[in-house]
């Protein structure tokens, strides 16, 4: 199930709210667990079994780690952590990377792994072998749990319902933010429900819905036009227009989902950490990743980069550590070579910044940093979004002037049609509107807010009901 659909907003979510708030406090986690499973099973019912498996394995591993630690058996505890990590990585590896690895091996003449097309089910009827939605998000979440229990950063959860609620929590289950158990620990057992929190959740949810439905979905078709344009017909300005549209689409789509998740969470009493912080304002590649998909960057920092030694090692080792982290970050985004290349692209920029470029940028004027930051990100999206290597080359070539001229009629038509939405999107990607909003007197805000809120809801509903273009971009994550 996805948030940006009428049946979610007008059927599933009201039902969840009703059930949740008529249930006494101590029953609410159970209610959440049940509705979470319905939410997850909606798209592919069989994959609910993965949820059960995931809950059972990580729950029991957490218990084992705690017991071993209590007995002073560090070796046993480490073994349990390793076993949990291996299980989660196998789960992710099998569903996400099996066919990619099998296909890649076959392509170089080593096709000893079979490509899987259908999976057997307990009742015998095989189902298509598809990527379980959100698997990259929830395997990372549950992995962090056992590690944190071992590190002493999180307490062991003895109640399996509470733990199941954490693993399956629907607001952030399928598109993040990636929440670490230790950040949610207390809230799972005890959370405040107040009208203030609910209203702020409403506000955040509607902002997110507008970002996703009114901005991202509006810009998507523009990118689709240029993605579908054959390489030899791409013009330089057209290629830039297309990739700028994609950059904005992905940002508003992804951060819109995060906003909706944070808003839904608040309406249910949770407080999730922020996931985006105006990434296109960044003055460097390193800064971009502190502002973009923050929960993923911090996950890799905490559970991969730091354990490898981070930056407190020799230069050679640090470069190696960065290489590992960015290759992993790249391939996390999808089982395809272009995502690996995209990760390595970021490795190059961030590596250069750590070595010397960062010091130069610090001395450079701010505007130069901004231009550098945006251009690096946007060019990166071309590698990310054009998955087919035979199309990626011509696309990048066209962006850098080796295309079919500067512009054509298609570009003029697209510019004319998308100019207003592009302007709105560019402004919305900066904190300008938020700044103006905060400057308004309290009274004005109180009058204007309900009007904007209803306008946002009504327009979002109109675009959702018409429903001609509403993609879910993270089915590969």
């Amino acid at each position: 199930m996805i948030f940006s659909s009428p049946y979610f907003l007008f059927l599933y979510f009201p039902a969840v709210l009703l059930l949740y708030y008529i249930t006494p406090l101590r029953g609410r986690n159970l209610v959440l667990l049940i509705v979470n499973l319905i939410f997850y099973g909606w798209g592919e019912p069989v994959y609910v079994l993965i949820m059960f498996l995931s809950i059972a394995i990580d729950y029991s591993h957490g218990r084992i780690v705690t017991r071993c630690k209590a007995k002073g058996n560090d070796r046993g505890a480490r073994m349990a952590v390793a076993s949990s990590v291996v299980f989660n990585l196998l789960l992710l590896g099998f569903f996400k990377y099996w066919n990619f690895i099998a296909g890649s091996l076959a392509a170089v003449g080593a096709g000893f792994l079979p490509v899987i097309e259908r999976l057997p089910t307990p009742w015998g009827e095989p189902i298509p072998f598809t990527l379980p939605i959100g698997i990259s998000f929830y395997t990372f979440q549950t992995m962090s749990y056992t590690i944190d229990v071992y590190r002493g950063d999180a307490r062991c959860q003895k109640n399996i319902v509470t733990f199941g609620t954490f693993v399956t929590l629907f607001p952030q289950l399928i598109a993040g933010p990636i929440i670490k158990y230790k950040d949610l620990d207390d809230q799972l057992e005890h959370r405040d429900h107040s009208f203030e929190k609910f209203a702020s959740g409403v506000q955040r949810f509607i902002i997110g819905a507008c970002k996703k439905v009114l901005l991202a979905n509006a810009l998507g078709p523009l990118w689709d036009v240029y993605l579908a344009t054959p390489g030899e017909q791409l013009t330089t300005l057209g290629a830039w227009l297309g990739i700028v549209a994609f950059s904005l689409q992905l940002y508003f789509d992804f951060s819109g989902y995060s906003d909706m998740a944070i808003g839904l969470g608040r309406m249910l009493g949770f407080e999730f950490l922020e996931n985006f912080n105006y990434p296109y304002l960044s003055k460097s590649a390193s800064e971009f990743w502190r502002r973009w998909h923050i929960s993923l960057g911090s996950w890799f920092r905490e559970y991969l980069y730091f354990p490898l030694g981070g930056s407190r090692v020799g230069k050679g080792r640090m470069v190696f550590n960065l290489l590992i982290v960015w290759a992993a970050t790249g391939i996390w985004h999808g089982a395809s070579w272009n995502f690996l290349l995209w990760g390595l692209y970021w490795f190059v920029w961030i590596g250069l910044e750590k070595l010397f470029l960062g010091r130069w940028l610090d001395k450079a004027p701010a505007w130069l940093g901004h231009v550098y930051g945006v251009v690096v990100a946007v060019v990166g999206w071309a590698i990310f979004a054009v998955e087919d290597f035979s199309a990626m080359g011509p696309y990048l070539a066209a962006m850098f002037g080796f295309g079919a001229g500067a512009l054509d009629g298609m570009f003029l038509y697209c510019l004319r049609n998308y100019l207003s939405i592009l302007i709105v999107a560019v402004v919305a990607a900066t904190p300008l509107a938020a700044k103006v909003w905060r400057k308004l007197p309290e009274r004005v805000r109180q009058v204007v807010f309900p009007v904007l809120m209803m306008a946002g809801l009504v327009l979002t509903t109109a675009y959702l009901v018409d429903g001609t273009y509403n993609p879910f971009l993270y089915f590969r994550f």
Partner: protein
Amino acid sequence: MNKKYSIFITVLFCMFIFGFGIAHFIVPDRESSEQENTNLSQFKAPTLETLRSGEFMEKFEKYYNDQFPLRDQWVHLKARSEWALGKQENNKVYFGTDGRTLFAHFTRISREDLERRVSFVNKLGENLDVPVYFSLVPDKSGALPYLLPDNAPNVDDNSTIQQAKELCGEKVSFIDMTDWLGNPSGDEELMGISSFYRTDHHWTSMGAYWGYVVLMEGMGRDIHVLAWDQKALVSDSFYGTTYSASGAGWVEPDSIYTIVPEGGTKGRVTVTRYPEGKPIEGGLYYPEKLEVKDKYAYFLGGNQPLCVIRNPDAAGGKLLVVRDSYSDSLAPFLAEEFQEVHLFDLRYNNMSLKKYVEENGIDQVLVLYSSNNFNTDQNLFKLGL
């Protein structure tokens, strides 16, 4: 936010989502949408099987959208706001620069595909001993390019028609309509906009009249119907298929006129329809179709595998037209010229064309498609069988 204000916001939001959520249960489901000219999905109770396979969920999502309370208004609101944002199209329909005319996207095809398609027409020419004429009705975007948004992609520049003309073999005579329907020279009321419905892809009776004039000239015949002063208004509330897709609720409806009266100018024209293989007496016009959404079916009652129109007073022989829906509004004019007009639709009729021509003593054949249909139809191969 203080508590009172937060309660206000909470209630406002909940009223909206609960309100429409409950209304969805209460408001009865509709069979079809007049505005969108389509059947709407219906609720199907889940079974263990459809739940397990996910089929129920997939269908339910479509059902939930299709039956959403005030659906037509939501669709209209979306189109309106696209327009307000400066968009020149919505759901693959261009808003014409006159603010009244809508254009559906045109399907372009490759040269190879076109060659393949025209080769079927050539094959028909070689198979038959009677003259074979071939003509393509220009797309509205090709006929009225000056009403399109600047640089609009996915429009017809009439190149299909010019290429098709070049590709025709010796046994096929191509009749080119582009000049007639394309460049309005003189009275725009007569030759320009009124050749096509503003809200539909079809040509109007006026457009069909110009088509008839060009076709008769191409077939070496005189014309017997004089046009516009004989017109009769039959409907002023026609919203066509292009309108349905566009959501452009602000566009005024079209008017439907006829030029030839029912039964022809001499009143002796008879129509035999074969909707399901068996003959049924019919007419040139179907007034009951003016009460439904797709009013274009007023002409000959809509698509059918075969229709034969007879006129004992006409001088011409027996003409077979390989038809699409554009032929329906052309038929009243053809009926004035030919003793028999056989409208043969390859989409619904699997009889051998060659055999039909021979058995019915047809003495000339016209293959007539709209340019967009010719580019997309999957049954053209039957021409060559």
